[in-house]
């Protein structure tokens, strides 16, 4: 709670300091559900004339029998590498229409990253470890981010103009859209409704997990 309060003070300070410029504006979006921050929410920001960030290879790691990160937003056409940081093999697959692929049993990093050229949501699974679940959000939005544990994502160097915001979370059936105007200030709170939790943690009692942890 103390930490949260300090952040809020900081956030407020940031918003107050934000200059009303046509470029180089900043927006902090905070996603909440029932007043609680929502982590791992994908937030897209569109502004006419806003250039996309320079693309870089995104990484969807498999670590401790989890996909890491849980949700990974990527720009359409961007390659995503699937390194395996565990000491067991994984069999990553996606039956999603956006991108069907299958990385048969492997360890280490596959030679070729997977390119997601169509926008949409790709649900990732592991054929060996049923609980493993991950999402890749393929978007054509110039700016996107994932909320941190505080439910916030920060956009910098955006235009001080009206922006359309889209928020999506695996627990949300459909994405939520919102609009932002610079007059609204540099902070935007987006309350959302979440569905039932999506389990993606390895079973607590699994000895595989403890074994791998010990190994590391």
């Amino acid at each position, binding site marked *: 709670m103390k930490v949260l309060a300090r952040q809020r003070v900081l956030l407020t300070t940031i918003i107050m300091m934000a200059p009303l410029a046509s470029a180089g504006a900043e927006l902090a979006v905070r996603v909440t559900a029932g007043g609680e921050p929502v982590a791992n929410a994908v937030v897209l920001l569109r502004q006419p004339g806003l250039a996309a960030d320079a693309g870089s290879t995104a990484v969807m790691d498999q670590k401790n029998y989890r996909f890491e990160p849980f949700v990974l937003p990527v720009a359409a056409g961007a390659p995503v590498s699937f390194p395996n940081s565990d000491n067991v093999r994984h069999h990553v697959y996606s039956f999603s229409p956006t991108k069907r692929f299958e990385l048969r049993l492997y360890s280490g990093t596959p030679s070729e990253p997977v390119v997601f050229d169509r926008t949409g949501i790709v649900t990732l*699974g592991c054929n060996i470890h049923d609980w*493993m679940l991950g999402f890749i959000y393929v978007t054509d939005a110039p700016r996107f981010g994932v909320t941190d544990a505080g439910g916030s994502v920060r956009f910098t160097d955006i235009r001080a103009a009206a922006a359309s915001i889209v928020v999506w979370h695996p627990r949300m059936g459909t994405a939520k859209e919102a609009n932002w105007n610079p007059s609204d200030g540099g902070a935007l709170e987006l309350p959302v409704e979440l569905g039932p939790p999506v389990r993606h943690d390895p079973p607590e009692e699994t000895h595989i997990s403890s074994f791998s942890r010990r190994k590391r």
Partner: protein
Amino acid sequence: MIGSFQARLAVVFVALTAGALLVTFLAVSATTRGGVIDTAREELKVGQRVVEQLLTSRVRQLTDSANVLADDFGFREAVATGDAPTMRSALANHSRRIGANVALILDLDGRLLASTAARPASAAFPWPALLAQAEGAGEAATVAILGDGIYQLVIVPVHAPLRVAWVVLAFALDDDFTAAVKRLTGMEFTLASPVLGEFTANSTLPGGASEDLERQADALLASEGIVQEIEAANLTFLTMPFALNGRANGAPVYGLLQIPLGSALQPYRELQLQLLAIAGIALFATLAVAILLSNSVSQPVRELVNVAGRISLGDYSLRIPVKRKDELGKLADAFNRMQEGIAERERKILFQAQHDTLTGLPNRVLANDRLEQAIARVRRTGDSVAVLMLDMDRFKEINDTLGHPVGDDVLREVATRLREGVRATDTVARLGGDEFLVILDSADLDSAMEKAGEIAARLSQSMQVHNSRLQISISIGIVVCPAHGTDAETLLRRADIAMYGAKQSRATVAVYQDGYDERYLHRLNLIADLKAAAENDELFLEYQPKVDLDSGEVHHVEALVRWQHPRYGRMMPDAFIPLAEQSGNIALVTRCVIERGLDNLRDWLDQGADVALSVNLSAIDLIDAELPERIADALAARNVEPHRLVVEITESAIMRDAEFAIEMLGRLRERGIGLSIDDFGTGYSSLAQLKRLPVHNLKIDKSFVIGLKADSEDAVIVKSTIELGHNMGLSVIAEGVEAEETRNILAQYHCDLAQGYLFSQPLSAEDFMRWYREFEH
């Protein structure tokens, strides 16, 4: 053989045992049957749990299988394609692997994506509740109807890796399943549903039972979870219907667990048979015990009955052997003692019954018996037997004057002398009172008369009794058998008659004469009739006037009693007065005479006649101490002056007990009643006695008067009697005056009064009054 006691005891024993056994049998049967049924009920409930457990374990198994299918990467890949033919082929392929009969794929909204069913299923999933359950729990199962069969459905999700679809697998609950249930539970098991074409789907019951169950489907399903008795395939089953699925999952499916009642009751039947066997043995044993027990009682009782029967017949010789120490033994002992006691008392009683206690002589009963024996002997031998009937003269006077103790001693002395006077073979018996009987064996009339004389002489010897010397006289009647009779009754009666004859003739001994008997009977009849005569007005009075010879006037009249007997006609006093005296009826006659006579006298007096009435009193009347009083009362009642009544008493009556007679006469005289001595001249009275008699008149006996002639011997007697009377201050009456000459002689002798046919025969009261009036004028 079996007496009623025995039979009753056996019946009671057997009935009691049978009753107890029946109650036990019924109670045990009811309890056992209830227990057996309850046990079957419990078994059925256990069976239900077994079925449910079986279904649950199948669900686990089938769900696991379904999960394996749903997790198969290839299958998931096929589902993920969204291509129906691919999905269908994958479904068919994979479901065959795990033996599912039907498989479906549903999308997350429950829409059918693919099916292996031959018939194309409708788009909507028919068990939304199952789906909802699966959404909550991740998986679900139920029993449901699919097409014409009953299936177990399991629904599991397909993950890719998020849930993308549902796989529904159906496994038929077929004969293998029902057979497995039967194997596990030992019960018949049937799957049924009311929505099926046939009510039952699978059953372990033999063919044909299905229709029976279908008929009773409504009743069965109405009481779900309740055991009921159901007829099927000609057997009765304890049936437990229970639902296999929830109502939410479409058409209901039921399982029917059944135990044949027969097999359920098998142990009960065995118990019943055992009970029946035990009951049979118990009844047989009871019967045997009852017969033995009753025999041990009834056998000695029969012996006692036998002895008692003999005792009742007078046989006291049989003793009951006393073998036992129990109550029956004591009873037998008591019987023996009773028997001895009865025998002893019977001997005593017999002796008392046959002997006279005073003299120890045989009594009338034994005498009769001996006489019968003697008669029998006479019949046998042609011999003769004599019977002597003895009666003491004037024994009553001894008793009255000297007292009964003296009388008893006299009787004892007489008994002794009689006993001493006969042979030992002869019988001496006391018949009662002063009457004795002697039976002389082998005696003819002559020897009997000789013996009688001897006995009379022996008894007439004076005897010393209580400081007084007494002399008695006896009268003896003799009869001889067979001359005078051949039966005891006749002989005794005739001996009695002969004895009376002897008494009357003062002859001491008399032999029965033919004809005595009839007179005797006549007397008996008269005595019997006499009582009735007084009451029936058969007695009446006639009056004979007494004429004053001096004045020729009539102032006296004598009442003479007559008896108008219904059979013998008119009887004179001589014919019945002695009988009345002997039979104790004279008082009746006397009273009748006095009352009638006074009634008539009253009439005459009322009619102006100046007469006095004479009535005759008997010697017996003089004994009655109350007579003077009664006569006075009779006079007073009719208002007749005492001097108008004259009492006539015969000289012999007075002389029988002169002292008492004098006293009685004195009392009559005190009351003013006239007294007259009747029949004077026949009673041997002495002048001394005559002098003491307080009488007024003297009546000369008619035997001296009838045919009286001057200068005859009677004339002397009459003349001197008249003079004697006059000299003693008495008036003299002569009766029996029938001739004028007699009257003249009497008048010449100064006789005061005369009566007789010369003046008038005895007349009725009315005739006398008529005669009186004519005579006066």
